[in-house]
């Protein structure tokens, strides 16, 4: 028969002695870690969406009509279909600003519904193929040529929505028939949900649809700066000389989203602080009770030759088993909650970036460390007292 009795066996026996108390502690830890994992998943996903959008945009500055800064971010970061327009003549004025290297523009047409079946709201983006440096790199990679008049490519999410496969299909957009000739790779930005056409088609769209856009209107100007030029200086120059536009720097993309999420973040942090404090108090209270309850047993063990580290190890095993059980359950609950909320929470539903496996593993590891860390911290004080007791004195306490 194998010889298996160790100090860890005693810890397991101890956990089984009070199943209700063990259950309450595990449940509290589960709730705390679930709240942490959910909050971290939410914040990471928002930040990751903003970072990727900003990185992949390819422009240093975005010029939009005055008051449309938030709407531009809605499209780029949150996939929200919206429209805003300014006069195309601004493009020439932007080109002349010192420090500007390249400019291009896009026109946003809202809303595309019922393309071939029931599909969510989407955007048609008309872009200038001669000057574009936003869509073209992705297009070249996928299609290997420019778009012809009457052709469109769709973002990866739109393709999913309209079930577009490899087979070319035709669809009527704003009174004109377009052939969908390809699907762009996922960019991680809001443009993944758009349908892209060349701006050669704008004349036909204006003629054949009741869209309110005028011929000389565009939505956004993308500007690339010359090397070494300070983006802030150029932005200030544009905003000071052209009151009809707002300028968004690449690094500021997502700021309005973050600011609108500020209160939600505060609620998350407050919930975290409260649940952490509660769990810490609970662990401390329970382990103080455990320490009092087992004082005599520990005294007997010390008399039988247990060192201080044996007492510490015994408690640590208990604490770590509890912490790990609560944390693992909390990670599962928090991850499930974040996946569930991602489908029903409008802010999360519109974010272009899903959390990858690596991010989820990191968040899980943070949850595990936090859950077990709280347990160890809460048990530390009662343990310190217990390990220093003189065996005879505690043995006699009966």
């Amino acid at each position, binding site marked *: 028969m194998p*010889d298996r009795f160790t100090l860890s066996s005693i810890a397991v026996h101890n956990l089984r002695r009070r199943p209700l108390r063990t259950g309450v502690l595990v449940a509290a830890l589960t709730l705390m870690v679930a709240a942490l994992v959910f909050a971290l998943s939410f914040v990471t996903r928002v930040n990751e969406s903003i970072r990727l959008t900003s990185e992949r945009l390819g422009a240093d500055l975005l010029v939009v009509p005055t008051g449309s800064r938030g709407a531009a971010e809605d499209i780029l970061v949150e996939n929200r279909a919206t429209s805003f327009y300014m006069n195309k003549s601004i493009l020439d004025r932007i080109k002349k600003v010192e420090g500007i290297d390249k400019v291009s523009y896009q026109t946003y047409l809202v809303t595309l519904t019922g393309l071939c079946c029931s599909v969510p709201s989407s955007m048609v983006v008309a872009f200038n193929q001669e000057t574009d440096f936003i869509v073209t790199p992705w297009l070249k990679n996928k299609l290997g040529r420019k778009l012809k008049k009457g052709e469109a490519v769709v973002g990866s999410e739109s393709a999913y929505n309209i079930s577009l496969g490899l087979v070319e299909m035709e669809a009527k957009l704003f009174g004109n028939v377009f052939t969908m000739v390809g699907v762009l790779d996922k960019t991680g930005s809001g443009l993944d949900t758009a349908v892209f056409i060349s701006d050669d088609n704008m004349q036909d769209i204006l003629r054949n649809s009741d869209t309110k856009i005028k011929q000389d209107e565009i939505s956004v100007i993308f500007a690339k700066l010359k090397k070494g030029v300070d983006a802030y200086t150029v932005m200030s120059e544009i905003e000071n000389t052209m009151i009809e536009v707002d300028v968004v720097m690449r690094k500021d993309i997502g700021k309005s989203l973050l600011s609108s999420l500020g209160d939600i973040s505060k609620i998350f942090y407050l919930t975290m602080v409260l649940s952490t404090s509660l769990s810490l108090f609970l662990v401390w209270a329970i382990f103080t009770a455990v320490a009092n309850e087992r004082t005599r047993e520990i005294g007997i063990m010390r008399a*039988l*030759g*247990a060192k201080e580290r*044996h007492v510490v190890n015994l408690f640590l095993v208990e604490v770590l088993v509890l912490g790990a059980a609560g944390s693992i359950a909390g990670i599962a609950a928090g991850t499930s909650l974040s996946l569930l909320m991602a489908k029903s929470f409008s802010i999360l539903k519109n974010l272009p970036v899903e959390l990858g496996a690596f991010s989820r593993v990191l968040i899980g590891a943070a949850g595990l460390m936090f859950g077990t860390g709280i347990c160890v911290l809460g048990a530390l004080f009662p343990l310190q007292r217990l390990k220093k007791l*003189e*065996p005879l004195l505690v043995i006699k306490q009966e």
Partner: protein
Amino acid sequence: MPQIVVQDITKTYTVGADVIPAVQNVSLAVEEGDFLSIVGHSGSGKTTLLSLIGGISSPTSGRILFEGKDLFALGSDELSEYRCSRVGFMFQFASLLPMLTVKENLLLPTCFRPGGGETGPGQREKKAEDLLRMVGLTEKINAYPSQLSGGQQRRVAIARAFMNGPALILADEPTGDLDEETEMDMMNFFRTMNKAEKITFIMVTHNTDIAKQTQRRLRMHRGLLQEQ
């Protein structure tokens, strides 16, 4: 050289403003393999003296040398090692851990030995089974303490004291809960272990008949020790 030398040991307890002397200026030398008993009234300091020799209580003054080493000059870990590998305790009260079975209670002291007490596959278990057989409790090996009578619990605690192969047994009223026949069996068991293994026994008892069976008898009165 004596195995144990108690040099002018004093232990006092402070209760409020009162200082109560439990053991007063006791000196004693015990040779390896001695079997001695200490008798005395309740509160005379017998248990305290035993605890001091066992290193589970520290003296107010004086020294205790075990094999030439001053116990209270040892660090906490060394003192624990002394208790673990050199001493076997039999407490006056129920001292089994309630959540462990009889076998697990016996294996408990081996967990505190360096390396977790593993000397070979199944050796700890075999020793536990042998000792249980010697105290007549083989059939209770998987029982919990709550399923045993007071006397049976006492016999498990007796067996546990021998698990780590001690050089010294400190027994505080070891036969207190036992019937006459079992008491005699246990005394025979002690004598066998004393002779065969050369284990030193210091036994505290109220029972003068039991004390008479020991090789050397001491009496404690109000913290003072006298040879009989």
